């Protein structure tokens, strides 16, 4: 094959990839748009009918060395606007005085809980119950097995039909539980439900409760605001409309307890255990021919802390991408499986081609064309045309998410917020996304070569606490 032919092939591949990728995203965004409009229209009427309906929920929250913030986090959980829920904190063998702080703040009493082991975990040292809050229990277990193992211990103790699992430092919207139980009430076949996660940096939080929404000053966090909007409102909502929600975010997921127990609980040997769980539920349930639904609600239910420095962000993204790779690989049988519906036939191949392998094509495409341009094999205009196409399509996608946000929740109060986000939506295409691709490529390489990922504790900026 001639060099020229090769180059042309690359160009077609690159352009075709971008057009197909963006068309799919755009298609998802429009599916989301219609879903969202229907959702918003029905919401106030639904609220009146459903307002007195409650499905009891267990909140399972693992905590490891969080003595500084644990009391605030628990108070915030206990203040959720919901009548019927229990909070189960799993102290994952913290080395600091997390347990002592909880004991002091909530008057924990050792309790002879008739604890049943349905999912095997590291040994549980004791169960405590709060005297101040009857719906608060603490499971004290030995460390090991990470968040997955701790969550499993919490699930063993959970009493309600559905459970939420999340991080102690995520801030839940006061109405989050009301919203998230609705899919379970409306359709008893629902086995999992995700919700929109937003960035908390720049917001005012007091006592673990969100008081005022704002945008972060830190540019890196600001870009992530747009990124999250795109991922949740554009992508997930669209997928959920066709029951192809392959992945429920780790920061906010609600699961049907018995289904998760039957699937064997969270796996301690993968990196993105929450991601893996949803893919596995899809696989197992479609293998068994069970009719089920994985739902998503567009309401902003959870606010999470975004990394504000490159090193932390890199670590997070590499972990996510590796988690994605593992989740898909471990459940590869879902792909094109019988009865797997849009999850196996659309979402799975899409995630492999356009999420998992995207860094290869993006970085590869830019490299090849950049080299061709540099050595004079490609004219400036052609090169520019490709770069422009890639950027413009990216910008368009980000603006779609902004539009979706405006049509639904308009969380951000001021018009200047929208402008700021729009500017960021343009700018993120110049550098940020490319850096993401490189990190993802690195993670992919690491996964393929079996390199151990550097766990490292994610550096958190905790100044929104208090």
């Amino acid at each position, binding site marked *: 094959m001639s060099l020229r032919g090769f180059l042309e092939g690359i160009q077609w591949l690159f352009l075709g990839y971008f057009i197909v990728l963006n068309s799919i995203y755009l298609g998802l965004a429009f599916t989301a748009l219609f879903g969202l409009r229907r959702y918003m229209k029905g919401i106030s009427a639904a609220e009146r009918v459903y307002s*007195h309906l409650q499905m009891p929920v267990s909140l399972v929250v693992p905590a490891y060395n969080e003595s500084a913030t644990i009391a605030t986090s628990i108070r915030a959980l206990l*203040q959720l*606007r919901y*009548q019927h829920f229990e909070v189960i904190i799993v102290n994952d063998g913290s080395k600091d005085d997390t347990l002592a702080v909880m004991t002091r703040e909530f008057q924990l009493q050792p309790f002879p809980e008739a604890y049943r082991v349905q999912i095997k975990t590291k040994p549980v040292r004791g169960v405590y119950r709060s005297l101040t809050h009857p719906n608060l229990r603490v499971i004290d277990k030995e460390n090991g097995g990470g968040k997955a193992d701790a969550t499993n211990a919490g699930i063993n103790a959970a009493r309600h039909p559905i459970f939420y699992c999340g991080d102690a430092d995520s801030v839940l919207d*006061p109405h989050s539980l009301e919203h998230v139980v609705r899919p379970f009430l409306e359709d008893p076949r629902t086995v999992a439900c995700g919700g929109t996660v937003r960035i908390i940096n720049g917001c005012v939080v007091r006592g673990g409760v969100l008081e005022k929404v704002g945008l972060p000053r830190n540019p890196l966090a600001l870009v992530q605001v747009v990124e999250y909007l795109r991922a949740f409102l554009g992508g997930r909502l669209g997928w959920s409309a066709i029951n192809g929600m392959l992945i429920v975010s780790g920061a906010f997921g609600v699961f049907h307890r018995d289904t998760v127990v039957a699937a064997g609980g969270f796996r301690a040997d993968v990196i993105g255990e929450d991601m893996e769980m949803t893919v596995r539920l899809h696989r197992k349930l479609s293998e068994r021919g069970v009719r089920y639904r994985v739902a998503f609600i567009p309401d902003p239910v959870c606010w999470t802390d975004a990394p504000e420095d490159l090193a932390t962000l890199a670590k997070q993204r590499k972990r996510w991408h590796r988690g994605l790779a593992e989740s898909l690989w471990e459940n590869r049988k879902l792909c094109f499986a019988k009865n797997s519906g849009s999850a196996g036939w659309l979402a799975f191949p899409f995630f492999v081609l356009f999420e998992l392998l995207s860094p290869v094509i993006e970085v590869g495409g830019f490299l090849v064309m950049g080299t061709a341009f540099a050595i004079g094999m490609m004219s400036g205009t052609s090169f520019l045309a490709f770069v422009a196409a890639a950027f413009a399509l990216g910008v368009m996608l980000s603006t779609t998410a902004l539009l979706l946000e405006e049509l639904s929740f308009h969380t951000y109060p001021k018009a200047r917020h929208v402008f700021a986000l729009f500017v960021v939506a343009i700018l993120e295409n110049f550098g940020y996304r490319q850096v993401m691709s490189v990190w993802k490529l690195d993670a992919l390489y690491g996964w393929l070569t079996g390199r151990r990922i550097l766990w490292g504790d994610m550096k958190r900026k905790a100044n929104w606490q208090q």
Partner: protein
Amino acid sequence: MNSESNAPQRLLIVEDDVHMAYLLGYLAERERFTVETIADGRKAAERIDAGPAVDLVLLDVMLPYTDGFELLARMRANPVWKDVPVIILTSKTREHDAVRALSLGADDYLTKPFSPPELVARIRRRLHRPPEAPQRPTRKKKRTP
């Protein structure tokens, strides 16, 4: 009607539905009460712990954060609030709530939707005795109307 003193009596409304709260406030102001409205259970609990008692409380059961039962128990356990008359507001399908409220020490209950003249009559009956009278008969469980 009630007290002959000139100072207006104080009424606390704990209700999260804005329409209901407005309506109750309007009625109470017509009855020349000084009205205070709180829309959620947590703030109401803070108010009970911190502030001086009022002359009468209208209390919704289904409240965000802390429900009406807990608030009622909190009042009954607080020396300042323990004798303040409390009228519970509850929806028709949850009349068993009313039973529970009465056993927790509520003085009366009303189901939503309610009849305004009836509520006014009940409030008046509760406040027949001047609130500053030194020894008000202790009211524990009261008959249902």
